[in-house]
């Protein structure tokens, strides 16, 4: 159907302005980003997942596992969580969030859950050795005292 030219022009203008409104509504840097808290943890850790600038319900997946979760819309973001299962062996896992046609991912590290072995003990051993020597000195002094006492008592008895 042919439309008169002026109307076509008006329609075109409307479309352009609608597009402008749309781009204004969504900031230029509105790429979805995924943030985890905490970023590392052991089995049983609950990991909160935030998909920033995802203005709808989203879904999340943990790579190489059967763990998937939902991120309901929360203001301008989508937010959800998953729990580290005992099937997840220590290592690095990519957490991917699908928000409409966008996907974004970040990494989570499953650890054994203990702290870091950040010491060899050389400064501690100095202190421990000092304690040992003090103890040895005390024992020696006591032995010497006993011996002296015993000798004296022998002398008086004689």
């Amino acid at each position: 159907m042919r439309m008169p030219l002026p109307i076509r022009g008006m329609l075109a203008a409307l479309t352009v302005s609608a597009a402008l409104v749309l781009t204004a509504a969504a900031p230029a840097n509105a790429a979805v980003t995924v943030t985890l808290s905490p970023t590392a943890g052991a089995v049983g850790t609950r990991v909160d997942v935030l998909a920033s600038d995802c203005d709808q319900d989203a879904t999340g997946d943990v790579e190489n596992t059967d763990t998937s979760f939902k991120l309901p819309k929360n203001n301008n973001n989508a937010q959800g969580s998953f729990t580290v299962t005992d099937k997840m062996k220590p290592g690095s896992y990519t957490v991917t969030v699908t928000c409409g046609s966008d996907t974004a991912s970040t990494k989570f590290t499953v650890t054994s859950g203990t702290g870091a072995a950040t010491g060899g003990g050389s400064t501690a051993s100095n202190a421990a050795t000092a304690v040992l020597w003090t103890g040895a000195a005390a024992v020696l002094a006591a032995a010497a005292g006993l011996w002296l006492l015993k000798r004296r008592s022998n002398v008086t008895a004689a």
Partner: protein
Amino acid sequence: MAAVVLSFVLAGGLGLMLSSVAPVPSFSMPHFGNPFHEDPFAVADPAGGTWLDRSEPTRVDIDAVGVHAPLTALGLDYEGNFEVPKMWRPHEAGWFEAGPTPGEFGPTVLMGHVDTERSGPAVFFPLRDLEESDRIDVTREDGVIVAYEVTAIESFSKQRLPYEEVFGVEPEPALRLITCGGAFDRKAGDYTENLVVFASYTGKRDATAKDLDRPLNGRDHFR
């Protein structure tokens, strides 16, 4: 005896009078959401700040306690324990590669030895002397220096390292330094505790020529 009782009564009366006159601070009940889990993103907006993109850290400088150390990337060992710098490189600290880099949103975690097996103190030995508000600079590969301020220094049993605190988000990019503390368990060949320094983001700047010329503490520093 009567005098003592009287003085108590008088003191009590005085207390009552005072409390009726002086403004008593009002205690508001803290807000409890889920009693078992707080929303870490309630105060944090990862996309809301002018945070930096990823760029690996290369060195850490803490002038207050004389730490000037190169950084190496760390992951996990085959058992899932944290990898730490090599024992024969006591001058070297490391950063947890799987986590955010300095200036990115989230916690950047650095680890370093407190001492070695033989040669005495190592790179993070001086952390015990840190105080609140001391400044920590971390230099990135892209030449940006991210500055932090110490907010807390705490010791935790290695069996109960609070991951939520160490690896959890804060309103701004954050930094944690981890080394060893507590007693040395000779049988296990390891310390019983981790000393964790919590630091918060204070700003970033481009490294100047002077920054880049700062000497690093080499191996000889730890002999």
